[in-house]
């Protein structure tokens, strides 16, 4: 099993969480921070193995919660709840279509924060939610949807540029070539 893809996905998750905590551009311009982990989970669920999907949920969730006032571990389950069903049914999904990636990214980016907030409320926490949260939810959904095809394209480019290329079997084999010519006696 090649470790290139899991390392690439987890490194991207690490940098994405760091970027979300330090870059406040989307928060200043749109009033909400866009979370890239759900979009990344869609990519992992459609292209990586179950170990990578699980590691992304656990490590991504841990990294996200370590910067946040969330209880540690609360983001793990929503991320995995999005990634696991998609992983199980990924053969039925047209993963190469940007529109399919967009729709899946939007759904994941809407579901993950909603489930996280539900878990927080269920755990007795008081997250800051009100009518204004609907706007933030819409921004997160739209941002995650837009980010998903970009992540697919980025990982596709990284795979081509940095990963090992799959050897394609050629129809022509020199050792099986029938040579025509004069029969030497």
């Amino acid at each position, binding site marked *: 099993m090649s470790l290139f893809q899991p390392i690439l996905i987890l490194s991207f998750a690490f940098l994405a969480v760091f970027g979300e905590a330090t870059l406040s551009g989307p928060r200043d311009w749109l009033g909400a921070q866009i979370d890239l982990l759900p979009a990344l989970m869609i990519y992992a669920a459609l292209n990586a193995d179950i*170990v990578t999907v699980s590691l992304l949920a656990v490590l991504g969730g*841990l990294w996200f919660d*370590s910067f946040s006032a969330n209880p540690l571990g*609360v983001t793990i389950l929503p991320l995995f709840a999005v990634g696991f069903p998609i992983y199980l049914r990924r053969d039925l999904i047209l993963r190469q279509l940007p529109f399919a990636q967009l729709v899946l990214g939007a759904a994941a980016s809407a579901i993950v924060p909603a489930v996280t907030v539900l878990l927080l409320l269920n755990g007795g926490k008081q997250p800051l939610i009100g009518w204004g949260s609907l706007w933030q939810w819409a921004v997160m959904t739209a941002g995650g949807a837009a980010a998903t095809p970009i992540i697919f394209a980025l990982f596709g480019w990284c795979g081509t540029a940095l990963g090992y290329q799959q050897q394609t079997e050629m129809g022509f084999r020199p050792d099986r070539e029938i040579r025509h010519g004069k029969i030497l006696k």
Partner: protein
Amino acid sequence: MFKQKNYLALGAVVFVAVLLLSLPTRASARLKLAVGSWFLPLFGLAGAAQQLPADLADSVLPRRELLHEIDNLRRDNQQLREQQIQSAAIARENDQLRTELGWQRLAPWRLKLANVVMRDPANWWRTVQIDLGSRDGIQTNQPVITAEGLVGRVSAVGLVSSQVVLIGDPSCRVSAVVDNAARDLGVITAGGPLAGGPLGASLPELSYLASSANLKPGQDVFTSGLGGVFPKGIPIGKIIYGQSVEGGLASEASIKLNANLGALEQVWVLFK
């Protein structure tokens, strides 16, 4: 076998999540700090990257502009020195009067400057991380301010960084007093119709005011000193509008904060 592997992964992830969520608060906080420390090398890189354009800009600044800036700073410095002398005289007089009346003397504030290094990536909390920790003497519940006014309080302390919960977060409630004749008392909470949204962060609510509170737009709001966390007299913001609630049994007001919580770069941690 294929299915078994998937369900093993499902079981492992659920087990890890439940284990983490059921950790005691102290262990969870320590683990959080340990996981957060993985990012320390990136903070160093980000700091250097941010410093680079500033250094480049400094190196190409004209000499005339620098001299002009020095002149302005000297003038400001002179004014501040005069104000400091006046303040010291007023403080001495205040101490003397307090002694004569038998009141306890006020301890002067000590401040420590901190850089805001990151913000909460989750949209449903209002917290930031600062680059001061327990090795700098930071403790939980210390007030955090800017030159404009109150920002929040320290909620968790690591070795080299701390988490500050900002005004407007549900876990940062501040006892406040309105600067009017009746000195109406209330509590700054995270409520309001726009709570959670981008505007809600800078417009928290002053709740639990008396029904007879005389609220007018533009009135200043300060910390009341009640509750023991925030000292008395730190400016918080101004009233935008006030209204009766609970069928006229109480009042509440919407507050425009003095400090711009969306653009915090440096803050002061207050030591009592």
